[in-house]
């Protein structure tokens, strides 16, 4: 596939979904963070040198349609079960970053049938800390410049000149922010049910965390990892909350190594 080609719109479970497809071979489903696909391009291109990457914009994000009635990440994970079946993906590596990691974890608590590996990059979605304090940085209560500073080791990988952005990009940004509020306003960035379901994740999992994450602290990442039966934790140096954006080479390499480390036979259950 021509790497200059943008995402195409595909009909998934009755909704028009924007999907970026790159590369050939073993399928990797990449679930983007709440800030959208912008900034993840380099990571996707690096993965696509070895595997087939399927990177949709989540329903309600980017230019993807929001199906009527969809309002929770639980709903969203069922949508992704439909997507996995309708694209007939098998032996699939699911990679989710931040908000996308929340979706990935919810998918993996619901099925292991077509999944072989799970990679969570700075994933959110579960509650581990005290009840009178959010575990995670509240982007809706923090000025943009401040949460950018806290979320990145080097915010320049993400920053854009908003004034010169085309209408289409501004629309995608506005939709990303609105959809994030729809799915994660309150409880903020988590599903109260998820923590107790994480034990159901039956595939090997790799939990990657930026060493300088000011959005989701590294202790949160370690708690997340400990709640998943077969998971290992690795720090990514010189990265904040979005290591796949700040250290795309290191993260892509870890995903490829982990995804191919122990090929699974169908029906191979631990």
């Amino acid at each position: 596939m021509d790497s200059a080609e943008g995402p195409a719109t595909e009909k998934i479970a009755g909704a028009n979904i924007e999907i970026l497809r790159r590369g050939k071979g073993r399928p990797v489903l990449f679930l983007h963070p709440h800030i959208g696909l912008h900034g993840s391009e380099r990571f996707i291109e690096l993965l696509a040198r070895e595997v087939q990457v399927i990177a949709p914009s989540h329903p309600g994000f980017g230019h993807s349609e929001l199906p009527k009635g969809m309002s929770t990440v639980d709903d969203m994970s069922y949508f992704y079960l439909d997507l996995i079946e309708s694209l007939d993906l098998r032996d699939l590596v699911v990679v989710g970053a931040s908000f996308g990691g929340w979706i990935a974890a919810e998918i993996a608590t619901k099925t292991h049938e077509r999944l072989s590996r799970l990679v969570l990059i700075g994933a959110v979605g579960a509650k581990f800390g005290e009840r009178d304090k959010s575990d995670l940085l509240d982007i809706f209560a923090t000025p943009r410049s401040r949460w950018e500073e806290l979320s990145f080791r080097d915010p320049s990988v993400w920053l854009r000149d908003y004034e010169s952005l085309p209408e289409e990009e501004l629309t995608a940004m506005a939709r990303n922010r609105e959809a994030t509020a729809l799915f994660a306003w309150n409880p903020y960035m988590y599903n109260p049910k998820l923590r107790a379901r994480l034990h159901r994740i039956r595939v090997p999992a790799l939990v990657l965390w930026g060493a300088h994450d000011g959005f989701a602290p590294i202790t949160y990442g370690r708690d997340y990892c400990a709640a998943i039966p077969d998971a290992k934790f690795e720090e990514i140096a010189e990265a904040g909350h979005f290591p796949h954006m700040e250290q795309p080479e290191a993260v892509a390499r870890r995903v490829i190594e982990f995804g191919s480390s122990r090929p699974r036979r169908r029906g191979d259950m631990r």
Partner: protein
Amino acid sequence: MRIYHFSEQPCPDAWAPEHKSLRVILPSRNCDPRVMAENYHHRLDEWMLADELGLDIMINEHHATATCCCPVAAVPLAILARQTKRARLLTLGYPIANRLDPVRVAEEFAMIDVISRGRLEMGLVRGVPYEVPLSVRSAVGQMDRFWEAHDLIIKAMTSIDGPFDWQGEHFQYRNVNVWPRVYQQPHPPVWITGRSPQNIREIAERGYVLGTFLSGFQTRELFDHYRKACADLGRPAPAPDRFSYLGIVAIAQDRKEAMRRAEVMVGYLRSSGRVAEPFGTPPGYFSVKDAARMIKARGKRTTTTRDGKAVDTHHGAIEDLVKAGIMFVGTPDDVYQQLSEFIDSIGGLGHFLMMGHAGHMTHEEAVDQITLVAKEVLPRLQKPRPATKQAA
């Protein structure tokens, strides 16, 4: 023509310049409860005076802010329902899309309506953007939720033959059965604030009172959306009592004193705009198109004078705010003149919502203002005047 006395019940001692945001994040450590008790008593006394002198009463609510220290409109409404004799009791209003429990809203309204022997005016609002960060629910789908809450409140008040269940998209209830039955049948009058043509159309379709705040000479356009909706539905032109407008009044026997009071009151406009960055543009509050525009450039809230000059609502000079129809300042003659010209220019008005106390204004000054408006402005506005220019 009715005039409603209104104060936001502020806590102006907390308006120190070092506080960048007077909303959402200002610690309540800045509120001295002894001072606030005095403030509450004075405001209630002023409303009781308004009742005696022939004015009506308006109450609002905001949350987590020093600019309006009334987070529960039902509290002053309940006190005034018992302590006043004749005034209409308007709340404008209840932010029902942010409330978790519309049935509780119906119960509060029903009690206030009965205790006041049928004097409640039931105002429902979407709420300003910076109320959203304090809400359990986000602004996404807020208007859908608003109308479902509205439908449920009206059904709860008008169902008098036993309980019903509500299984809506946003609210689910078992055995809704509101006691007491409301005093005004079938339910107290409904007011709703609106700015967008679509929203005003929905208010017009239901025949409710349209509320507009500080919209100056743009008010004509907002009222015209209502008039057009009525015309489209084949209904007669709406009477002036379907329209209300909120403006700030600084009045005194001499102009110099009125101007001084205006300077005190304008502190309200200067302070109410002080909101920390993320709280002014909560996701979902504005359309995607408007939100995209806001990412590109942060806009100031402006209004225009009658001759089209742009005025910054929060920082404009008093003279400009008077020309813009936001403030009405001067002697009783001046205020009468400014109000009648304004009312003519917007094509008629049934309810003038007067911010008659604001900012650091003292109780004595507020008493003087209420007295002057009740005795020297209202009777003149109630006299038949030459036919106003009606809407096209």
